């Protein structure tokens, strides 16, 4: 008996170690980035551009790119997820689902390379906002498709049947009946997609370029600054100050990340409450 108890303790102890091993790196990364950024951490970072040791243009550019991904990948991804969960049948559905899942494994550097060849050079878009948004969207689309589809499949069939039985148009069925209860999961999928977009570098290196100016609203031919590029570039520039700026840009992308996570949680809690009211 005591041997079994001992084994039990040992098992949970190992699980505890595993938990520590999972969580400790996150804490260590946060601490080391903030520590390296400390010499330049100051609100004026947000009002100076990258040629003056600030990150104003990079923050704006990153947010501008995120907005594009939200619109493009969000609409297509949720649409595709709805289709795969509610409308697609048989082999076609299997093929489309498979295509999307394989796309999820596409290495980001390959997406960047192809974006460069096809859009930047091939279509003469130059380094541009649109090329970057499309490259990022291709990267994150499968996450949104998958989470949307899984979320919709978890909506009880009774709701679906009832709505169709009542003669609701499918536009209404999807919007009023199916999406609200699935919303928390759908939103968290979109938030994950935005989080990935915030941190990506490889697909952007060859598609949006970089500039010290603030991002313009032009979709083509204008380069866009973004945070991960500042981190990557300033690391290989001489001077301790450049390295601190690199870490500060990293800290800023982490801050956007934390905001996205909290936003996702808040949104999903709200829609969970709304759903609870609706089904009652």
């Amino acid at each position, binding site marked *: 008996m005591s041997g079994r108890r001992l084994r039990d303790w040992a098992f949970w102890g190992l699980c505890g170690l595993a938990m520590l091993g999972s969580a400790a790196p996150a804490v260590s990364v946060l601490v080391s980035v903030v520590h390296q950024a400390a010499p330049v951490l100051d609100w004026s970072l947000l009002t100076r551009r990258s040629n003056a040791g600030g990150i104003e243009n990079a923050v704006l550019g990153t947010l501008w790119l995120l907005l594009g991904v939200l619109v493009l990948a969000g609409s297509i991804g949720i649409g595709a997820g709805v289709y795969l969960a509610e409308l697609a049948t048989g082999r076609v559905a299997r093929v489309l689902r498979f295509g999307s899942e394989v796309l999820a494994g596409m290495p980001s550097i390959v997406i960047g390379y192809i974006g460069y060849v096809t859009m930047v050079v091939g279509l*003469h878009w*130059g380094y541009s906002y649109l090329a970057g948004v499309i490259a990022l969207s291709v990267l994150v689309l499968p996450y949104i498709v998958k989470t949307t589809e899984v979320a919709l499949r978890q909506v009880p069939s009774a709701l679906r049947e009832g709505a169709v039985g009542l003669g609701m148009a499918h536009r209404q069925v999807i919007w009023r009946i199916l999406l609200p209860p699935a919303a928390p999961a759908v939103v968290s999928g979109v938030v994950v997609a935005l989080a990935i977009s915030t941190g990506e570098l490889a697909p952007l290196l060859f598609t949006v370029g970089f*500039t*010290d100016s603030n991002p313009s609203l032009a979709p083509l031919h204008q380069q866009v600054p973004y945070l991960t590029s500042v981190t990557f570039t300033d690391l290989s520039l*001489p001077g*301790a100050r450049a390295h601190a700026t690199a870490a500060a840009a990293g800290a800023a992308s982490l801050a956007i990340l934390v905001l996205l996570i909290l936003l996702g949680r808040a949104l999903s809690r709200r829609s969970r409450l709304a759903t609870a009211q609706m089904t009652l």
Partner: protein
Amino acid sequence: MKPYVLPAVLIAAATALSACSSAATSTTGSSSPAAPATTAAAAAASTTTANPASPVALKEDGSSLLYPFLQDVVAPLHQQFSNITLQPAPGGSGKGISDAISGNVTFGGSDAYLSAGQLAQNQGLMNIPVVVSGQAVNYNLPGVKGLKLTGDILAKIYLGKITKWNDPAIAALNSGLSLPASTIVPIRRVDSSGDTFLFTGLLSATNSQWGGANGPQFGTTVTWPAVSGELTANGNPGMVQTCKATPGCIAYVGVSAEADAQTAGLGEALLQNKDGNFLLPTQATLAAAASAVASSVPSNLAVSLIYQPGANTYPIANFEYIIVKSHQADAATAQAVRTFLDWVMSPTGGSQASLLAKEVFVALPPSVVTKAQAAVAQITG
């Protein structure tokens, strides 16, 4: 061919005018200096340099070594030519060249000149030198100051043939120093780099195996021989950082990062030049390297400053190049490009001491400026 005087006069005029306009009310600020300058330009020819009549954004991508310098010249350039805005980006030399070819950017920045193949393949593609840069060799041997090295010894170190600091070949050059018996740790760049191009250029010039039929080549991305214990680093700061953390290391570092290397306590090696003298990279020895080739710069301006003759010539120096197509999209862009290039290599413009000093760059010798300006005058819209 344009005499050098004309642009200089125009620049002076534009400077005076922009100084006036900045003192005057801001409503006339941007257009007033443009008007007289363009009139003068139109009277002369279509290849002059002046503030263009309408705003032009000059997009640059390329060398990360040139990038901090270009960032610094954006403001003074715009101040003098209110319709020219320079937008530099640090994508790397190779990307700068291919972006200039594909037209993604107005021009690229490169630490290396164009290869014969690239020049042959892209009619009208030019490499125009704008400033002189160089490279130091640093080492981490506490207490050892003023180490002397030759290109051949460096090649043998990176080939794995010389592995100890007290190797007879090194000891013979440094009789006054007490060298440790420790292992030499060669550090090389991971990224494709102009610094690698320069360093391996010296190795090829001084060692028979390097650059030979079966040996390693010189270039921005080199297939290095595997040396036991070797390390790699990303960018010049990575070289400094890694060397600082590794006693016994040796590293090649661009001169613009030399202040970092000094702060990190690394030693700076005196390198043997072609005349047999041992020198450190300074503005004087780099300028001597540029002067050494000044009379023999070919018309395509692609020239190596590595291991040039002259008593005071440092063996690892280079021109920083702007890669640009001779035919631009329109006349205004062509005029802005000409104006920028003329201005950036002028001692009263971008090549003024205060802008160069920060990166330890050196202005082009006057005779090279003249040759470069002849090329600049070929840029048309």
